[in-house]
């Protein structure tokens, strides 16, 4: 028993000695620089789990455990940003966490307030390194003094933008998704600056005359390939002096009686014709944006992380293997989720390195032969005979 204590003390002493510290620091630098040479995930999310268990197992106070967790965060952020990660998202506080003891919640809030206001004192350093801090979550659930510190830190760094730290503060993913839906809906129920509000009830975004116009324009262009130069001039002349019936291309522009010369000019070129078809109906008719234009992308853009690159990697420590309402939407098709069996305060480069290396290995492999990990490519797979379904496997 005593020998192990002596040994650990000796190890501590050795690791803390200046030459050893120097060597380890150099080694870290070297490894981080090396990681930078390969593909690096652009966006990493961390669930910092295990602070309390760490505190319990080391016989220190819970708050102390959270402080250690903060140190671990600083270490890992250093690794991430130095190796070229653009965005790091951390799960600092869940809305569910408000259920914890008041003492702990207050301590966590106090810690956030102190850290954020300390950060605000170092604006110059943050500016120099282009770091941007954003708080994602329900800010309305925070106390006023914490909120003030949050706003100050966010405002100060909002001009920077190369490296982003997203702190999910009182956050749950379901809340975020709901918020995104709500924002999208309220955005779509803002009336467009339209000139004819009477059309609000009957929204017909495509006008029939337009479609016939475009079909004819298509036909005209295929025929008019031989004489591409004089289309525009011809159309202008037709608008001016009525109907020269002998000229085939010109007929297109006459038939639509309500057509103004500005829209006929759209038909001057093939690409312009296509653009005109997309833009003009919205301009003329829609008072609201059509809900049919909502896509997955629209919702993604309305998430808190809308302008960040897609999430490449999600790391959760402490061996708990679920997402716990974090980044549910963002964990899309290619996000790799890693669960590590280490408590967050212990988390360091040495645990993170295999994850990063594995990711790099997979990505560079996928780059080398893109077929190996392709998606379902839409070939028609015929449902085969029932007899095939009985095929025995596993032996």
């Amino acid at each position, binding site marked *: 028993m005593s020998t192990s204590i002596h040994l650990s003390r000796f190890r501590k002493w050795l690791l803390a000695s200046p030459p050893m*510290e120097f060597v380890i*620091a150099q080694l*870290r630098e070297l*490894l981080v620089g*090396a990681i*930078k*040479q390969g593909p690096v995930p652009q966006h990493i999310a961390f669930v910092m789990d295990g602070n309390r268990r760490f505190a319990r197992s080391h016989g220190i106070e819970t708050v102390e455990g959270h402080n250690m967790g903060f*140190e671990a965060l600083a270490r890992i952020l*250093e690794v991430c940003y*130095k190796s070229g990660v653009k965005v790091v998202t951390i799960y600092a506080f869940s809305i569910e*966490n408000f*259920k914890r003891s008041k003492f702990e919640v207050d301590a966590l809030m106090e810690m956030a307030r*102190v850290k954020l*206001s*300390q950060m605000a*004192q170092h604006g110059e350093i943050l500016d120099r390194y282009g770091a941007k801090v954003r708080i994602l979550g329900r800010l309305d659930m925070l106390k006023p003094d914490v909120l003030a510190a949050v706003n100050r830190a966010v405002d100060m760094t909002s001009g920077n933008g190369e490296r982003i730290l997203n702190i999910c503060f009182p956050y749950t*993913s*379901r*809340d975020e*998704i709901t918020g995104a*839906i*709500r*924002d*999208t*809906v309220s955005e*779509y*129920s803002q009336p467009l600056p339209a000139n004819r509000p009477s059309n609000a009830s009957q929204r017909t975004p495509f006008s029939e005359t337009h479609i016939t116009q475009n079909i004819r324009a298509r036909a005209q262009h295929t025929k008019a390939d031989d004489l591409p130069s004089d289309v525009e001039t011809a159309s202008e002349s037709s608008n001016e002096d009525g109907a020269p019936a002998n000229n085939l291309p010109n007929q297109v522009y006459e038939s639509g009686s309500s057509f103004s010369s500005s829209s006929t000019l759209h038909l001057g070129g093939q690409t312009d014709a296509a653009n005109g078809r997309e833009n003009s109906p919205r301009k003329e008719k829609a008072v609201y944006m059509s*809900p049919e234009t*909502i*896509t*997955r992308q*629209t*919702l993604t853009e309305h998430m808190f992380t809308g302008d960040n690159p897609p999430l490449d990697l999600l790391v959760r420590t402490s061996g*708990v*293997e*679920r*997402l*716990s309402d974090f980044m*549910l939407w963002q964990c899309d*098709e*290619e996000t*790799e989720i890693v669960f590590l069996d280490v408590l967050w305060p212990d988390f360091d480069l040495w645990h993170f390195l*295999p994850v990063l290396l*594995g990711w790099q*290995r*997979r990505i560079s492999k996928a780059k080398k032969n893109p077929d*190996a*990990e392709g998606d*379902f*490519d*839409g070939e028609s797979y*015929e*449902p085969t005979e*029932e007899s*095939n*379904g*009985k*095929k025995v*496997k*596993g032996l």
Partner: protein
Amino acid sequence: MVSQHDRELFRNDVRSRGTKLSAADRENILRPYLPDPSDLQRRSPQRQNKAHRRASVRTFVKAQTHRIVYTFVHIIFGIISRLLQSYHATVDRICAVIYYHHRTPELIRKDVKGLKRLPEHLSVILSLRKEDDALSVLMDEVAELAAWSVSAGIPVLSVYEKSGALKSCIPILHQAITNKMCSYYGSSIQQPRLRLFAPHHPVFDQLPQDVASDCKNGSLTVLLLSATDGRETFVDLTKTLAEMSQSGKLSPEDITLELVDAEIIQPEPDLLLVFGAFLKLDGYPPWHVRLTEMFCTGGRSSGTNTSEEAVEYHGFLRGLWHYAGAQMRFGR
């Protein structure tokens, strides 16, 4: 890497809630750890002086060193992961021999008997392979999983496959599962009752008359999911809500978490098994995996085909064991 001395200073400051050190003090502690700002100013127009050139030589040497280290580390890492992979593959082979179901529900029940808990709802992510008989292989996998689940006593199994190919052949799949059950349970009277359905499809439920027989060996509900049941449902919901809001039937403030939760009706799985080399959700419906335990069987099929792994019994069993060992906490 922060030196011990500075760490002590920092911790003392933290203990006194950030009052001991002034802002300038903290910056002084921090300074040695910050990277040289001149490294970052590469976008400024380059000044062609000698000092700069020397610096660029230094960066060149540094970059080359890093490149070499990168290659070296990756070679080592590759070797280690290969070794680990083959070790796991060997262990898995042995496991596969020890734990084999032999198509007897009793054996499967024995394998899961000692477990503290079983998932009420098991969910599985499968992928369609690229070969010609991919769909029949997939259906066979689903049938196997259904048989194992019902034998283990799991009442609900949901199968996620991205493209939704399974949904197009529900009757054939039902037949395939029934045939598989036949080989496990013998004659059709002994078979557990099977319900098979997909969102927006009717429940496929043959033999509704023999209600008496299904009590004996339990029942199984198989739910088929695909990528359209995930994020696309949210898109549809948003479209509908936007339309309602535009016609004044609802204000955006009415959209609450409870409303969305009530609209997105899907069962919440307890355990999600991913048969693949690494854990990715592949577009799985996002709303209901909030508290789902995830388990990835890992790329252990010794590198023959990287991303697609066969669905094997011991992978299924490992997932259940893992689930039984995990403890549940609701944010507390």
